[in-house]
């Protein structure tokens, strides 16, 4: 049974590795984003007093980028492509549930992206900025949190992906989800700078648990004693979104139409 899953994950990994040029442009994209953020926050620091240094802000945004790149999951695209071509029947015929097939396929793809898009950015970041790499205990908590982030991102993407069975198109749904994630999760704006009146909004939604949580664990923004609570919040959101996804799948299966049959 386990071998089936590793086979699917390996196929996802290999498929992602075809797009070599993509790897380069994504690294370039991340580094230019950080450069732009550096200019913006330096200009802000010149005019106003910030509660944190520009270096702290850029390290946070850099690690947030690394986290986001290593927990990326695109279920909408996977389903959209297959629903439109009608080949989703192939996945449905197999003796492994659709959810497991998508999960392990995306796990493989994401592992490839983590190695090729996130690790190089982390390396550059550590070369040019005083990033303090976490000690073993903190790193272990970070790794666990990163894993939960992937589960959480996958679960949200799965919920949205189920809508593709109705709309037949995936890319715009994925874009909508990732836009909301980007602004709410800490990827664009460090959540430690949020004004007090906005904190309840950002922290009562699941997005902060996807990027901000692993990021502050890595950068040492929280004491270790607080981290079990944070991992608990991640796990709770995963359970909620997982349940919603399961309910959505039941309804999708009931109305499933296969195009072009």
């Amino acid at each position: 049974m386990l071998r089936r899953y590793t086979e699917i994950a390996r196929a996802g990994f290999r498929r992602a590795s075809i797009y070599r040029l993509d790897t380069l442009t994504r690294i370039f994209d991340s580094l230019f984003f950080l450069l732009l953020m550096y200019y913006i926050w330096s200009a802000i620091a010149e005019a106003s007093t910030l509660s944190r240094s520009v270096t702290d802000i850029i390290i946070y945004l850099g690690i947030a980028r690394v986290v986001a790149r290593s927990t990326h999951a695109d279920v909408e695209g996977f389903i959209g492509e297959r629903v439109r071509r009608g080949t989703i029947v192939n996945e449905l015929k197999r003796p492994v549930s659709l959810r497991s097939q998508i999960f392990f396929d995306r796990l493989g793809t994401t592992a490839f992206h983590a190695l090729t898009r996130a690790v190089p950015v982390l390396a550059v970041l550590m070369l040019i900025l005083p990033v303090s790499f976490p000690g073993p205990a903190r790193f272990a908590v970070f790794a666990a949190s990163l894993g939960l982030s992937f589960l959480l991102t996958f679960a949200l993407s799965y919920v949205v992906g189920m809508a593709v069975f109705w709309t037949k198109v995936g890319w715009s749904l994925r874009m909508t989800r990732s836009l909301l994630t980007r602004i709410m999760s800490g990827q664009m704006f460090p959540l430690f700078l949020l004004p007090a009146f906005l904190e309840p909004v950002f922290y009562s939604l699941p997005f902060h648990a996807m990027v901000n949580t692993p990021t502050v664990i890595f950068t040492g923004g929280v004491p270790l004693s607080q981290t079990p609570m944070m991992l608990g919040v991640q796990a709770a959101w995963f359970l909620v979104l997982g349940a919603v996804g399961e309910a959505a799948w039941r309804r999708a299966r009931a109305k499933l139409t296969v195009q072009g049959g």
Partner: protein
Amino acid sequence: MMGTVRKYLEFYRLFFVQYWKSRMVYKWDFILGFSGQFLATAVSIAFITLLYTQTNSIGGWGYYEILFLSGFGGTILFLHHVFLFNIFHLGEDFIIEGRMDRLLVRPLSPLFQVYAHGMGDDDLSKLIVNAALVLYVAPKIGIALTPANLLYGAASLVSGVLFIAGLYLAFATTAFWTGKSEAAISILFTLSEFRKYPYSIYGGAVQVLLVTLIPIGLAILFPASYLLGKPGHGTLKIVSVLLGPVFFYLAYRFWRFGLSRYSSTGT
């Protein structure tokens, strides 16, 4: 001359109608794409608003001034994307697939045909929102509708779109050698974020880049700072609205050169 223009307009109309017919087959694709892109602009404005919870000046520019810049640049960029974005697919859809051959045997400019083949309709909502943003913000920061401003505004719009068109065309043309245009142009997506903030906040190397290879400074940043009455770069502000056509012409020469090297894939 007028006859040629009329012929092209007529062909554009035919392409246009045909495009929308096939587009409307996937109605949901259009509707969701349209609203998704709308959200993209909303998120971009939300980000600027979050930045201004920390300060009231970025490079000496206030909140509404940055919003104006954002809307002004967005109007130029998305005017280009709505009508001329199809050049993005030059390598993947036209050269590799061999569709270029078909364009070459017709008595119409091949570049016109590539452009007319598709519309960036997903960006239609971005164009509308950005234009609305300009109209909403301009009176708040006292940009008067004087004849000089109107004339300058119109010239900067034309020149800006031609700058962006030249830039995309030049990057796409490399596909005649590499067979790929999408990856090259995706670099421009990243770099065009520089259009949203004042020229003065960037370091020397980026500043040079923005007035030479990637002339977003000339296309957007200087014209916007002229309209806002910002100090500095007096000559560049005037000259920049005249240079767009020149830049596009140079890119067009490069395209002609690339086209002359084109050999069919034989498919």
